[in-house]
């Protein structure tokens, strides 16, 4: 019973207390770069979740065999391989998303969230805990990117998930689609999120 309770906390920490985007401010490059729409945010989040899950699984399984001095190169090779797999699969089966995310797919490799979890968690914990950790952190990342993408899309384009609720020639706050708007939206969402979770704790 204590074990399952721990896993629940392990999962929830990635979404709330240690949310990678709003609390730890990790992986800012994709966070700011691709979230011009809710769909892009969701797609990037899911791709990252997959890579994080697979790398946590493999790192956790081979942790006893990897000499400490070469663990970082070993982790990077593992992560880069899964990212390349994701890139090839997206190009083959979801070409629309592949075009939208563009250069940000290969850049998942350098998302410090993934290497961070491999080094700080998966290399020290067992397989089940590592999977739960990856799912929690990944879910936190997906939720944060989707929320940021949705905010920017609503304000900047007058639509949500491509569903327009303003006329085509209406003037929207284009600032929020452009890069500076990403910083502004992220800052306000982070304030809001931290306010909310502090009261909960």
């Amino acid at each position, binding site marked *: 019973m204590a074990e399952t309770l721990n896993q629940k906390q392990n999962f929830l920490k990635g979404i709330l207390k240690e949310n990678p985007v709003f609390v730890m401010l990790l992986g800012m490059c994709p966070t700011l770069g691709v979230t011009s729409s809710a769909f892009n945010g969701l797609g990037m989040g899911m791709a990252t979740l997959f890579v994080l899950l697979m790398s946590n699984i493999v790192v956790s399984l081979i942790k006893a*065999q990897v*000499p400490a001095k070469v663990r970082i190169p070993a982790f990077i090779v593992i992560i880069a391989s899964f990212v390349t*797999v994701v890139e090839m699969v997206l190009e083959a089966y979801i*070409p629309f998303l592949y075009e939208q995310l563009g250069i940000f797919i290969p850049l998942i490799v350098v998302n410090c969230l993934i290497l961070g979890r491999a080094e700080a968690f998966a290399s020290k914990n067992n397989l089940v805990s590592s999977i739960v950790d990856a799912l929690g952190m990944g879910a936190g990342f997906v939720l944060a990117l989707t929320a940021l993408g949705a905010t920017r899309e609503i304000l900047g384009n007058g639509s949500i998930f491509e569903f327009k609720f303003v006329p*085509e020639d209406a003037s929207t706050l*284009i600032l929020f689609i452009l890069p500076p708007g990403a910083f502004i939206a992220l800052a306000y969402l982070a304030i809001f999120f931290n306010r909310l979770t502090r009261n909960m704790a």
Partner: protein
Amino acid sequence: MKKKESTLVNMVVVLFAITLAAGLTLGFVNDLTLAPKARARLAKKLSALQHVLPPFDNDPVSGIIRIGTPTAKDSIELYPAFQEGSFAGAAVTGVSEKGYSGLIKIMVGFQPDGRINNIEVLEQKETPGLGTKMKGEAFLRQFRGKNPETFDMRAKKDGGAVDALAGATITTRAFAEAAQQAYDAFTEHKDTLAKPHN
């Protein structure tokens, strides 16, 4: 968790094993996705063709003509369309590198007499909400049914007949250049295109 001690031999062996496994996995996935990737690219091309061309019943991709361009590295592609054996028009790609953020690539569908049937934007990196409105109905509507021979595709402020996109004059100019390039290629190669190729 006790860390494994690092000796030269085990470091080399472990890294070799990991990179070997990674290489094999990637080769395997690459083989697996090669055909679907080609299919996805073809499907995209076909859907663009269907969108811009009048009704047709041949395979325009098999009759493709490629010609080099002086301005862009890309070549112009011309796809002839036939309906029941008679020439129904052609889809022609046009590119311009004068977009606000570089390359703009469009596909223009022409009817046999040179009138524009429809236009689709294939590639662009323009400013969201400004330049990207060239994909919008309000902008593209201006071109449908017009013959570039009599219809000046430049923006009104450049002496043409097109209402420029608000806040995106540069995009409009690049679009006009790409469309003009497509039309020039169409008129030049129309006779070759209209010949049945089977």
